[in-house]
């Protein structure tokens, strides 16, 4: 093990990610000798050793901030640029990046926001961040051949009860406490947005032809789709639909849902 190199890399990591900057990070380094950082990093008349490490510290923070701004545009719009900046400052201290790709930087942002004091002014913001994160994950989610509207016609009527379908592996169904679905669309289209209203919502996020869509699900559709995702047979899914008091005609409802799922490219072979 290259011990000197390991020591150097660990020190630089601590300094670059120091919560209050390189200077404070240096003050906390008890093992540095009298020459401090100058004994490790060469400074000159243009830039001191500390200023040179500062360049990396700034790049570290701003690269992650920029990536998160890009991944969470509606969350940025709701919180405001300055507040989002402050959120990210705390967030990367609690959830420092561990993965090789910046794509994963924001995967805990929604969880972090749930307990953040800044969400007081916009308490739906954690749900909004969860939705934006899901949109990104669905965009990069696994591929699978979606069943088209014609693909189920060959199934004999007697076989229908036993068939198993599956939800496309890239799709997600989110259980949220706020009605945030409209917000990402409003921000993307540069329209004025309204704060989300409180209310339990199941939001489907799915991909069709490489584009990501999302919509709120009615309760019956959410439950039926969750049955599909659980690997239920078609007969069991129909039972879920038929068991809903607010469904007047279960056969029509099931047919309509099935047609929509197929046209959305949401189903794959089970």
């Amino acid at each position: 093990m290259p011990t000197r190199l390991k020591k150097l890399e660990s020190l630089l990591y601590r300094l670059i990610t120091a919560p209050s900057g390189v200077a404070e990070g240096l003050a906390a380094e008890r093992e540095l000798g009298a020459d401090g950082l100058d004994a490790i990093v060469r400074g000159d008349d243009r830039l001191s050793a500390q200023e040179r490490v500062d360049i990396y510290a700034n790049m570290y923070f701003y690269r992650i901030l920029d990536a998160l701004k890009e991944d969470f545009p509606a969350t940025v719009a709701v919180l405001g640029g300055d507040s989002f900046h402050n959120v990210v400052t705390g967030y990367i201290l609690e959830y420092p990046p561990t993965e090789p790709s910046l794509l994963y930087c924001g995967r805990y942002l929604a969880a972090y926001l749930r307990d953040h004091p800044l969400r007081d002014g916009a308490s739906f913001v954690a749900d909004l961040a969860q939705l934006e994160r899901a949109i990104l994950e669905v965009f990069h989610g696994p591929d699978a051949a979606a069943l088209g509207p014609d693909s189920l016609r060959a199934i004999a009527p007697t076989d229908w009860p036993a068939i198993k379908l599956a939800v496309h592996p890239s799709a997600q169904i989110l259980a949220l406490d706020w009605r945030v679905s409209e917000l990402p669309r409003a921000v993307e289209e540069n329209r004025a947005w309204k704060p989300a209203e409180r209310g339990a919502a199941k939001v489907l996020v799915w991909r069709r032809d490489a584009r990501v869509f999302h919509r709120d699900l009615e309760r019956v559709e959410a439950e039926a789709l969750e049955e599909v995702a659980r690997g239920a047979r078609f007969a069991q899914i129909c039972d879920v639909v038929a068991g809903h008091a607010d469904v007047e005609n279960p056969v029509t409802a099931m047919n309509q849902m099935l047609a929509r799922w197929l046209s959305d490219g949401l189903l794959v072979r089970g």
Partner: protein
Amino acid sequence: MKRSDFPILGYGVGLRRQHYSHVLETRPKVDWFEVISENFMVAGGRPLEVLEGVRANYPIAMHGVSMSIGSTDPIRRSYLRQLRELARRFEPAWISDHLCWTGVGGRNLHDLIPLPYTEEAIRHVVARIRRVQDALARPLLIENVSSYMAFADSTMTEWEFISAIATEADCGILLDINNIFVSAFNHRFDANEYIDAVPAERVVQYHLAGHSDHGTYLLDTHDHPVRDEVWALYERAARRFGAVSALVEWDDHIPEFAELAQTAERARTIFGATVQTAKHETLKNRDADSTEKTGKSALSADHRA
């Protein structure tokens, strides 16, 4: 590894999201594309679909930013597995990454942090490159990074460091001309000396890019056109290394694709002119030799040719 093991792809452009549709729909005239490996190390969706489309029409090379070859953390097996799978699927002309470290202790800085130029670092990096090359079953290209700090521990120059590593690990070099210029300014060394010292037989690719001038230092931002001084350095490299695949990188304030393609064409033109000049000089020198020996003039020799 020999340079001739690799194809000469010509003059290419870094594939960026802003140009996906343009590239797929218009198939612009450019020799090849370089893709950032990590952007395609995903389960599925649009990025991989785009890469399928691009690969159907162009050669590609895969360029990574997170291998962290200089880190003292273990090499991530999952990263190598994903990289190998991506390479198997898209058959790049080669795979490259940076001579640096990007994280330690299981954490990632998402930045290219330089190494001290020491024997210890050489031994460490060489062993890791060999392991990576074994895992990928192909040679790796390592790229010199722009740097803003240098270490008191260093016992050699950057070009001695990268040359020693490339030779001992038997890997190729992706020579970033802009990075040499940026680091030369930041650390007050002679960029020409760097170009003149790198082992020619290992230089497989160039990067050309722009940078920002912050007064006391230059920052490798890839958000400006290639500066004249960097073109001059490229010309020097072209004279020394001959035909080498060149690629234009642009990562921020990305212009229309046409501007990137024009920059790649400029690299081609400069190389062409350099070769012509070199040929002319060679002929002149040969003729001078011949005149000395036979008494015939250089002009008559030119006409014969």
